[in-house]
């Protein structure tokens, strides 16, 4: 915030940064090669639903838009205990021999741009793209909209995360994605869909 914003007590809602999502397909290839992590083909967007008719209309528009695309994914919405909405985009499982996340990223981006178009961009919290390893380990690539950065989140049970796996995901993807340098921003997403 600038000096004038502080003096007048006006914090402008922070707009989301959307473009970095398209770097995910490239990073997925790297993660598969380096760590054997394969994307599940699903993805989710977490946002804050605003009160009122305007948001309900926007969300319906997103659902209609996603269902109209070819190879239409299954789309569901759910509320978490923090009052945020998770919009899950459920594609068919990815073929490990030929992983292509472009369709998923296009879908997620469509969600973001529609929300932004109607003025709800500041309500976007994060996007989640889950991966699984051959040994059953799960790790999600989380995109923080406000920072425009990614971080890995690998839950191993209730309130336990596999920090070593997270660090190695960070190191593997460092060349492909803007990764969150401040570890205190790697907030846990317990019970997130797909993990």
């Amino acid at each position, binding site marked *: *915030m600038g000096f004038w*914003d*502080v*003096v*007048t*007590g*006006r*914090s*402008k*809602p*922070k707009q989301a940064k959307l473009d970095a999502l398209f770097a995910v397909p490239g990073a997925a290839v790297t993660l598969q090669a380096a760590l054997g992590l394969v994307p599940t083909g699903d993805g989710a967007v977490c946002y*804050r*639903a*605003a*009160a*009122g*008719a*305007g*948001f309900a*209309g*926007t969300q319906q*528009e997103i659902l209609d838009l996603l269902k109209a695309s070819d190879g239409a994914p299954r789309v569901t919405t759910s509320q978490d*205990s*923090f*009052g*945020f909405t998770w919009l899950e985009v459920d594609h068919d499982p990815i073929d490990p021999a030929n992983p292509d996340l472009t369709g998923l990223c296009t879908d997620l981006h469509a969600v973001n741009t529609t929300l*932004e*178009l*109607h*003025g*709800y*961009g*500041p*309500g976007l*919290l*994060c996007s989640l793209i889950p991966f699984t390893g051959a040994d059953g380990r799960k790790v999600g690539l989380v995109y*923080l909209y*406000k*920072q425009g950065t990614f971080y890995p989140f690998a839950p191993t049970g209730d*309130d336990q995360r596999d920090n070593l796996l997270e660090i190695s995901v960070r190191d593997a993807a460092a060349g492909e994605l803007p990764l969150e340098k401040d570890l*205190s*921003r790697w*907030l*846990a997403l317990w019970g997130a869909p797909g993990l």
Partner: protein
Amino acid sequence: MARTRFVGDAGLTARMTTVMFLLGAVFVALIVVLMLIFPARYAPFIAVIGLGIAWWQWYSSDSIAMKAMRAREVTPQQAPELHAMIDRLCALADMPKPRVGVADTDLPNAFATGRSPKRSVVVVTTGILHRLDAEELEGVLAHELSHVAHRDVLVMTVASSAGIIAGMLARGSQYGAIFGGGRDRRGNNNGLPVWLVVLVVSLVVYAVSFLLLRLLSRYRELSADRAGAQLTMKPQALASALQKITGEINRIPQRDLRAAQSMNAFFIAPAIGGVSLRTLTSTHPSLEQRLEQLARIEAELGRPNV
């Protein structure tokens, strides 16, 4: 072109800026009068001491307020829910996470203090944790985080420096009246003792800056309400939290209007017109004002798409 649903309040900004300008003018006027009354080498000295006190208040604001409220800092392990809620709000607002404190008192309240967003602390009382549900608590936390983002501690401390100096002078001139009455008669042609002039000037400055400060405080509260509601996108949650904790909930009748036909005359909310002493000196805006603003934000957020 993406539309925005986060409209500012130009009127509020204009009023707030006017008040701050007036506070600055009071400060300058005080310094000028001091320089006229005192020999030039004393006036800056007094001003520096006053500013030093203001600076110290601001610099140690977090620990002073924590001690005054008997609050203790809690770790994510001790209060996971509270921390997770603040984590998410900070990620949404893109601000550094403040420290979190809890005060063991049944009084429902919350405050934020600290010298900068990086060195701030948000404290909630156990009373507010018990009374509010998760959504309402989030609204209150967003309001407090807005205070942090707006650097309200810094702004209010700077704004109060004229009042601090005036208070010091008023105290000092009383000693002057007792001890120095005979000696300090230089430079006043009309025969008034210096200490009396200083006392009157500082009392006037103190009173004016007191009223302006309270006005500024009310505007900052409205700004924090606005920013908080826009952050959580749920103005209704903050509104119901305010109704619960301000203890004025009985002002809005719960009874059905039809059931109360015969009592109708008694249910008309008292029209609050004019300016009373209470509205002039309170640090927070009235519940009605705050709810009115939240209703406007809700309407803007929920306007259907065209």
